[in-house]
């Protein structure tokens, strides 16, 4: 149980880190404004954002691997892998070419978030099915 709670916390941290980093990479005004307000807008530079994104994706995937081991459901992990890879590729493209690969970043973000939503839905529904 402790292991599950720990992995859930790591997964949440990974998800939040990835979403914020990718939103910053894609130039979401809210994220940029918030970071400017806090005086840490420099963090949006690829040299800082890329490692943050990589750590976020790594933590998120670690949590999804844990979920796969516990439940045997592979779909969230597959979606997380694709979404995380798309997110990292988007940031690498930005770092190398100073251009935004929006149509890779947005689907990547959707898939990464979708993987966690799906894993949460599976977790909620499974005990209900077992009970019924």
């Amino acid at each position: 149980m402790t292991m599950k709670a720990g992995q859930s916390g790591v997964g949440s941290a990974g998800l939040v880190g990835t979403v914020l980093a990718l939103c910053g990479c894609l130039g979401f005004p809210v994220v940029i404004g918030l970071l400017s307000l806090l005086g840490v807008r420099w963090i949006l530079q690829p040299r800082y954002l890329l490692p943050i994104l990589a750590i976020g994706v790594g933590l998120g995937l670690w949590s999804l691997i844990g979920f796969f081991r516990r439940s045997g459901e592979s779909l969230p992990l597959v979606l997380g892998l694709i979404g995380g890879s798309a997110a990292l590729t988007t940031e690498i493209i930005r770092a190398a070419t100073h251009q935004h690969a929006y149509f890779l970043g947005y689907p990547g973000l959707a898939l990464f978030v979708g993987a966690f939503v799906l894993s949460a839905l599976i977790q909620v529904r499974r005990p209900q099915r077992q009970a019924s």
Partner: protein
Amino acid sequence: MDQSQVTQRRYNDTGRKLELPLTLIALLCAAITPNVFVAGGAGVASMSTLTKYLLAPAIVIQVAILLYARAAGYPRLFNRLVIGLWVGAVATTGLDIIRQPGTFFGYLAHDEARMAGEMILMTEAHGHGRGDATPEGKQAAHGNAVTDQHAGGNTHAGAKDAHAESKEHAPDATSAHPASSEMHATPAHGDAAQHGGVTAADFVGYAYHYWNGASLAVVYALVFGRTPWWGPLLYSVLFVDTGMMVFMRIAMGPLTWGIGLVALLAHVVFGLILGVLLARFIRDDGSILKLISTPTLRRA
């Protein structure tokens, strides 16, 4: 034979008669999607016209069949259509993980999704037809690799030049054109395209790109049903990639090793994702030929 058995038999007979035609119509509609680009690129007719009179009705019919299959109780057909659509869209994101760096780093001559959007909206300012769509043709038409990079299609040298120029204009990545202002750019091929932003052609093109990936997956699901993971991989490499290469050779001129390798790798990823997910979520075995001989799966 009591009344319920008679009713059951009647439903089954109707189902047997309808599932095969519905599958064939859905298959035809799905197959139209990639071929619109092929026909448009080869100059058979403008892609705009083909979209209006062929692709749009095909999409409507395909969605109608999907809804009818759900409502009338054809679980096999419904399962193959729905799973094919979403798995194909997910696999397209996987394909783009390889394709988009290929475009941005200059290994692919065009962003094909944007190109399709420009062809559909008839906003192709630089032309992407048979003659001038080759990398050489584009270079000659532009005479400036930096402009080429901004237009979405670039050469390797062009990418370097454009990179240098974009650095000049935006020394700090955070001060580069904010996404918000680019996202609100309305002209189809105006300032946004010039600055690498998002245009209407991008939205339309990428919608087509994703629907295309979904349609290719639907074609596989309808024809082959559930297969091992390597089935879609072979389909993607031998059928989709080879078809695309042949089409590009015919419609757009000579191919380079870069285009060939990036396209092959992208389709391997596409096929792998398709294979894993279709093998997991398609419920029934059996190809389309089995529909003729096996009892229908229509729910009474």
